[in-house]
């Protein structure tokens, strides 16, 4: 008897209570679902260009990938065949020059920012300027090096191209290396100081070896970015249809993959346009390899 009474009371209670459980199709729930749907659509829309670009690279550029294309000289206007060999070498050499300049300076500056004096006026200004420089239009690096170097040397050169790339790589290297060095646990450094190490010894024997994977991540990302740059090379390295000729060749106009793509993209010849796609595929592959390496290194945590 008692059971039935309480059940009746319970049913009354339930009926008088507000509906607390949300329903899928009632106004608020429905709106929530609608927005979720829109977000999915936007996310898929945003990834479409990537798949389209990759498809075109493989479909159009993949057709011409062979040893001849990768090594031969670029064709002139009505010529058939030809390749992108000098451009691959040129890109590698100029990115190499850029890396050789920006990596040592960048890592040393990062040591100052992260370890030696993080709060001085110099450190704060340098950090701020590095951040500002990450948003620096890459074409202005070209204009700057043109004004500072090409005019003085009276020639377009691989040196000028490499230095323009170094200007663009430097802020990335500094900022990522600083972050990486800051991640090194204070305890490890304290232990080294406790052993009587000087600052330089702690940095050389503890901080740098521990932080190096993170530093390398930044370096590789900077290299990948520089390989894809074209605006700074446009009037520093210009273009050439021949391979770099030894040390002296570094003082002459030099070809690069990105400028080859730019020059060939506007030409009315199918052969050149096909080569532009092939060069794009090679360029994107190079960049992806560096990106993947950066990710693999970045994953290691201590």
């Amino acid at each position, binding site marked *: 008897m008692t059971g039935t009474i309480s059940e009746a009371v319970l049913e009354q209670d339930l009926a008088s209570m507000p509906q607390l459980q949300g329903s899928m199709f009632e106004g608020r729930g429905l709106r929530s679902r609608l*927005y979720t749907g829109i977000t999915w659509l936007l996310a898929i*829309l945003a990834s479409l*260009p990537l798949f389209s670009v990759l498809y075109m690279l493989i479909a159009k550029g993949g057709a011409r990938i062979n040893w001849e294309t990768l090594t031969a000289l670029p064709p002139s206007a009505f010529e058939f065949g030809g390749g992108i060999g000098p451009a691959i070498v040129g890109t590698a050499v100029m990115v190499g020059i850029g890396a050789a300049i920006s990596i040592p300076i960048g890592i040393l500056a990062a040591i100052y920012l992260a370890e030696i004096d993080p709060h001085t006026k110099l450190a704060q200004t340098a950090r701020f300027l590095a951040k500002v420089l990450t948003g620096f239009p890459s074409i202005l690096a070209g204009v700057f090096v043109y*004004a500072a170097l090409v005019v003085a040397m009276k020639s377009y050169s691989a040196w000028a191209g490499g230095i323009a790339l170094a200007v663009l790589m430097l802020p990335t290297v500094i900022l990522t290396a600083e972050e990486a060095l800051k991640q090194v646990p204070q305890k490890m450094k304290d232990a080294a100081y406790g052993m009587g190490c000087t600052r330089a010894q702690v940095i050389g024997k503890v901080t740098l070896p521990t932080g190096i994977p993170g530093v390398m991540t930044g370096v590789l990302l900077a290299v990948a970015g520089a390989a894809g740059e074209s605006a700074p090379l446009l009037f520093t390295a210009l273009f050439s249809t021949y391979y770099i000729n030894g040390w002296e060749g570094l003082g002459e106009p030099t070809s690069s993959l990105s400028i080859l793509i730019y020059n060939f*993209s506007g030409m009315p010849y199918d052969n050149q346009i096909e080569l532009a796609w092939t060069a*794009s595929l090679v360029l994107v592959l190079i960049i992806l390899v560096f990106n993947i390496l950066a990710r693999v290194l970045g994953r290691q945590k201590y």
Partner: protein
Amino acid sequence: MASNPFAHVVTKVCGPPSAADYGADKLLRAVVWGAAAVILLLVTYIVFELGRQAFPAMLSFGPEFLYSTTWDVQAKQFGILPEIWGTLYSSLLALLLGGVLGVAIAIFLTQDFLDHRVSNVFRTIVEMLAAIPSVVYGLWGIYVLIPLIRPGANWLHDSLGWFPFFGTSLSGPGMAPAALVLAVMILPTVAAISVDAFKRVPYKVKEAAYGMGTTRWEAILKVMLPSASSGILAALVLGFGRALGETMALAMLIGNSNQISLSLFAPANTLASLLASSFPEAGPIEVQALMYAALALLAITLLVNVFGLWIMKAATRKFEGR
């Protein structure tokens, strides 16, 4: 033989730093100080060098350079108003589109819509969008995007031609393809900074909103977005700064035409693509004018970027107190 055989080891391990050690320490400090100073010198030198090269043009063309509209090498008349307009217009259009997509992706990635693996896939996609070089986007724009949007653009022009945005037909390169590609290019910047902004909002805040019985989207729109708003604003400003300086894709897609038009389908020009297309063949006087234009571009981007960084700093301080 009476001496301690480990003496040399002991002094090496336990001794105080030698004079050489102190010397190395001093040297390292000096070297890294110098390396940090390099970036200051570099920025100063860039501004000084561009200013020095542009100075003759500033004297001969004056401020009129910034608001006159002809670029005529023969007549030695130079004005960059169409380029300033094109730079701002294309960047604003790109920001409108890339901003919405970027913030939507940031919400998508941070608000627990996705299984961990799926969200990693989308994160990789966004990172790869950022990794593709500008020239490749330009090439893609010429051979894929322009043919793709041309029928739609011309239909819009034919049926809604009285509307200023559709005032001309799209004959090839133009503002619309340039702005679309630009939107794709700034999307990763906006998404990455917005993701950080959302992650900075303490989890408690969202929990409190759910505790009040909000739906997921009420929590996002009424609580998360306002809390992350300053960080998202920074993302948009920095994305805008990125768009202002973007060069190659625009030089390939915008048509390099010296005119001011509201139409989305008309060719236009930007400061960066003016530099890219005119610099290699310019004579001495045109080079001076181009240096002046470069200085204008530097001023605009520096202003926007410093503003963006300032907002970001304020946004970080809001939650982390530093």
